[in-house]
């Protein structure tokens, strides 16, 4: 059933975008975390999307293939009194870029809405198909 496949594709898009929103929320929440479980400052994370392909089908949605940590240099902040300050008084802060995170968040929420829209339409069409011949 092609329309049922449209539901699976839509839901794969929803979960991928939801994971992107989660990662963005984690980045924003940890924008000031000077140390994580490993004692190092938090590094911004990004999701990597990849298209799911099955032979003989036009495509079967999207998946998060991996979550990568940003290689951007850590932000150095001058705080001589801080316990984590180095010899010259600088503290390594997370490399989270708030502007990038906000843009990512808006883009993810728009894509999420779009997938919901597509699923809603497919649902209506399916209900109409069930009424065929009445």
């Amino acid at each position: 059933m092609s329309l049922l496949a449209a539901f699976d594709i839509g839901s794969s898009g929803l979960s991928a975008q939801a994971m992107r929103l989660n990662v963005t929320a984690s980045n924003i929440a940890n924008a000031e975390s000077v140390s994580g479980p490993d004692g190092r400052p938090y590094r911004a994370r990004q999701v990597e999307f990849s298209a799911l392909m099955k032979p003989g089908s036009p495509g079967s949605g999207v998946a998060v293939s991996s979550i990568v940590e940003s290689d951007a240099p850590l932000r150095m902040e001058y705080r001589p009194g801080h316990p984590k300050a180095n010899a010259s008084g600088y503290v390594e802060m997370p490399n989270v870029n708030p502007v990038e995170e906000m843009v990512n968040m808006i883009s993810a929420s728009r894509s999420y809405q779009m997938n919901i829209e597509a699923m809603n339409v497919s649902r209506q069409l399916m209900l109409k198909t069930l009424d065929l011949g009445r």
Partner: protein
Amino acid sequence: MNAVPQYDPLSFGENALKLRTFRQQILGNNLANSDTPGFKARDIRFADVLKAQMEGTLPSTEVSMTTTHAGHIAGNITKDDPRLLYRVPNQPAKDGNTVDSDVELSEFTKNSVMTEAALGFLSGTLRGRMSAITGQPS
């Protein structure tokens, strides 16, 4: 010879509906992959594919090699669906993604309206046949 090809309305409606839902799946997949780097938006040329399907001239997706010796292996390969084409992007993105959400969403909406139309035609045909069988106007 007829200028307009005459098809059986039931099988035509069925084929049109199948193809519409297939296209719905393609466009939904484009929308789901609107943020996937390197993803190329795809689509079908609806009228051409429907015509080919009605006339049975759709190219096969199976490719096999001829075996001329007992030790040969036929080696069946499934080709990419020949009906699927690539969308020409009007604003290519830097990450290689060619999904334009506005275009895809409007095509998606158009396709769903057309699906409803196909459903309406099929429904009318079925109702007509039912009233011919029962003798009751529906």
